[in-house]
């Protein structure tokens, strides 16, 4: 079992166990991306490019200032009648520069539910050759690898599962403490090592 865990960890995967007394145990192994080529969607926030697996993407819609005002500051969007939560990536990643007037939400399907990721521009489809980002970045939540774009620049591969889990955790903390957790954590992280 230790060998399995080490192997799965090496691939940046996760193992989870659910066990019901008297009924049985199920072991789930989640293996994210390995050295492979995947069809992905290339998006841009500020001057940084990110890619996410195209298979998870359902659609892209616009997010205007009006939509944000109507939601009264909550990160919820109305997608054809359905309330869809979204993650403001520019905020979460503390990317500099100013927000464009009209942003794009990429609607992802995750475990049967819909989540949106807010980006500045959706550039288009991209065949991504996954490059490992190295052990130094293993603990970074939300980034699972990198790829080299046609112009030689590096784009980071988003781990949507981790982003959503992190968001859930942060919102629960916020409700408890009444403050903005992720911004505080980001500032603290920078302060400690500055």
């Amino acid at each position, binding site marked *: 079992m230790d060998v399995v865990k080490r192997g799965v960890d090496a691939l940046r995967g996760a193992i989870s166990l659910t066990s019901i007394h008297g009924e049985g145990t199920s072991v789930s192994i989640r293996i994210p991306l390995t050295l492979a080529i995947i069809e992905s969607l290339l998006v841009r926030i500020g001057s940084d490019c990110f890619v996410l697996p195209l298979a998870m993407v359902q659609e892209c819609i616009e997010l205007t200032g009006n939509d944000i005002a109507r939601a009264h500051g909550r990160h919820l969007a109305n997608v054809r009648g359905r309330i869809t939560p979204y993650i403001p990536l520019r905020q979460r*990643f503390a990317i500099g520069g100013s927000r464009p007037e009209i942003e794009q939400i990429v609607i992802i399907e995750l475990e049967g539910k819909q989540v949106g990721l807010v980006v500045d521009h959706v550039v288009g489809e991209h065949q991504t050759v996954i490059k*490992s*980002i190295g052990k130094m*970045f293993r603990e970074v939540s*939300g980034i699972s690898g990198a790829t080299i774009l046609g112009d*030689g620049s590096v784009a980071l591969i988003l781990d949507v599962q981790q982003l959503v889990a992190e968001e859930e955790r942060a919102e629960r903390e916020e409700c408890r403490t009444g403050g903005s957790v992720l911004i505080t954590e980001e500032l603290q992280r920078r302060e400690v090592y500055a």
Partner: protein
Amino acid sequence: MHEATEPSQYLTFTLDDEVFALNIDKVREVLDFTVITKVPRTPDFMCGVINLRGNVVPVVDMRLKFGMPATEKGVNTCIIIVEVTVDGETTILGALADSVQEVLDLEPDQIEQAPRIGTRLDIDFIRGMGKHGDNFVMILNIDKVFSADEIAGLEPSAAAA
């Protein structure tokens, strides 16, 4: 500190006008400053990653690690690609330097042990002080500067004293 019996070569570089040196066998290459892609949710001293001939290599700002103000990109700023060996495993990473100077040949008798106080750096980071003419250069122990924990992506080690 192991005793060297032959002269070794050291690459000298500057960080904020202070001269440091690295053993040449740890240095792979020196690049001009290129676009660095910042990875979100990383400490400030981790500048990000670069594309090195198809490989994604992390770049760190040594000035921030040593408690100096952040590097200002100038015409001489460059990235030194080093090999860091930790627990027998070798990782390649890039370190920002304000400028790269020359390769020095230092005899073992020109290298003194680092003083325990006065260098304003963690004693582990310095392998010795080399004497070159009238000046001293601090020879870095690059394996200690980037600790095993950091390479493994866990908590960074404490920086300046």
